[in-house]
């Protein structure tokens, strides 16, 4: 077998998983938000994370994106990139994008400008000062506008969008970044049934091309998209499997319904 060595700084997912979290622990003032958690995400996989409030879902995303540094454990992106050595912009540049629980878009900029800022390009200060959009870049913004259904709102100020539209815009910003891994925190909160369906289609269409990790409370939604589900409880992985396996696991039932 001929192994093609990846260039330094490039993601090497040749062994299957693209994201490795091993024995990660985070505590805040003695409270263990993550407790010896291990998790592997495959390249191109769509994974759903569920778990009761306080299970550590958001902290987990914070660790992956560099917002929180764990007390112990290791986090690797592919075989070679140690995420614990990078800060948020470097992790974003390496190819991990994140959508927040509460939709966070730039409310004073237009929809188009929001996507323009997220566009995958050189984000150096001087280059940004003199940046001009190329025809190709315009096309890719137009394409994302189509995908997220905001083509008619391109010049609207993002603050004037509905809650659901803001969620979509934020997903659109993620797409502009062309990440290899997308972390999507509660994408359908506050959406109508139709919007939820379209979001499900969108996320499903991404798998294979990108790895997508979805945190969601809406079980119906999770059922409609998930192949593999990971249940978190008290900062560690309780169980992992298909939606049916997970839902019939007595430990999961106990965690959700209480004793």
């Amino acid at each position, binding site marked *: 077998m001929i192994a093609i060595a990846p260039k330094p700084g490039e993601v090497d997912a040749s062994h299957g998983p693209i994201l490795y979290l091993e024995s990660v622990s985070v505590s805040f003032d003695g409270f263990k938000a993550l407790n010896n958690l291990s998790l592997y995400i495959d390249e191109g996989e769509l994974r759903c994370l569920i778990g009761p409030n306080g299970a550590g879902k958001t902290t987990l995303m914070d660790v992956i*994106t560099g*917002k929180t540094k764990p007390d112990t454990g290791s986090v690797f992106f592919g075989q070679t990139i140690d995420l614990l050595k990078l*800060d*948020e*912009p470097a992790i*974003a*540049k390496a190819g991990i*994008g*994140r959508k*927040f629980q509460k939709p*966070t*878009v*730039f*409310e*004073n*900029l237009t929809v188009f*400008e929001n996507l*323009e*800022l*997220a566009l995958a390009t050189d*984000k150096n*200060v001087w280059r*940004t*000062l*003199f*940046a001009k959009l190329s025809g190709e870049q315009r096309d890719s913004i137009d394409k994302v506008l189509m995908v997220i259904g905001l083509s008619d709102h391109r010049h609207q100020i993002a603050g004037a969008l509905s809650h659901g539209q803001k969620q979509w815009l934020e997903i659109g*910003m993620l797409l502009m*970044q062309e990440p290899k891994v997308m972390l999507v925190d509660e994408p359908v909160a506050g959406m109508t049934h139709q919007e939820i369906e379209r979001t499900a289609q969108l996320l499903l269409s991404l798998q294979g091309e990108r790895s997508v990790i979805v945190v969601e409370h809406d079980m119906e939604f999770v059922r409609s998209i998930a192949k593999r589900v990971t249940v978190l409880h008290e900062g560690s992985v309780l169980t992992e499997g298909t939606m049916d396996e997970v839902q019939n696991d007595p430990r999961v039932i106990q965690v959700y319904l209480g004793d």
Partner: protein
Amino acid sequence: MMLMDWYRNDKAAVWLMAAIVITVTLLPLGNLVFPADSPLRVTAYSISLIGKYLCYALLGLSLDLVWGYCGILALGQSAFFALGGYAMGMYLMRQIGSRGVYGNPELPDFMVFLNWQELPWYWFGFNQFWFALLMIVLVPGLLAFVFGWLAFRSRVTGVYLSIITQALTYALLLAFFRNEMGFGGNNGLTDFKDILGFNVHSDGVRASLLMVTGLILIAAFLASRSVINSKLGRVVTAIRDQEMRVRFIGYRVELFKLWIFVFAAVLAGIAGALYVPQVGIINPSEFSPLNSLEIVIWVAIGGRGTLYGGIIGAILVNYAKTLLTGWLPEIWLFFLGAAFIVVTVFLPDGLIGLLQRLPKRIPIRKVKAGAA
């Protein structure tokens, strides 16, 4: 054609620049052409006063970039202003030459008074105008760079950043008060004679300084405007509104903050350098933390995040200050405080925001009248 398009796109910018050009042309004419007893004569005092307002306008503009657009409430902007002023003051001191009270060709008067034997090393080069110009840009820029790099890299934000910027300017105030620093201590630098070989007190030089100040203000306004309209400007606005989000899209937030902070510091330094020859003195009181707070009030009253706001706010507030401190000096600070509160509570977008809301109402009335 281009001018017409431009006018349609940004009327306010064109009006503002036209107003500045007219001011800096007509006033010096009024001073130079009409005889002293003519009612149309503009006094030399007025020329310097307007020149001073325009320097403050540039200072207000610089704060609007950092505070209005990037959301950094920097309360040390006057430090950069004063440093630029000192750099210009040092050049003007060297221009005095042997015409000082002590007639020493090598040393400024205050150094002779302190029994200093030779010029400190950091005064070398200031007999050259180009060197002074370089320092006017470099010294404030470098201080802002080092300070900003340390503060933004450690992610110092909000009120903590405001406090350390106040501390910065206060520390400089104390340092410049000391005679041993070699900047004239308490009295600062004054008794200037010439600039580029021309008498600073002559009408011609005053008029030229006013014109130069006006032109530089316009240039700075246009430069700031193109920065704000660039992608960098949008990143900076985005940092103000959602700093975390900007990081997660892959921008190094600290470097963008640093860029705009240094740019604004350089503008403030230039404003200070233009201020000193027109006012005739620079002393440590320019570093006073209160001055920096006043700049914030100018920008708030004018309307932050607009670029015009900083300029118009600075001019109006300082005009009011001139009038009020003439009539009733003791109420000035109460007036300023009250104006600040009224603007913050009732006009969060300042006077510019008020003006922007006005024209929208008129067409609505017209439509109603047409329908009826």
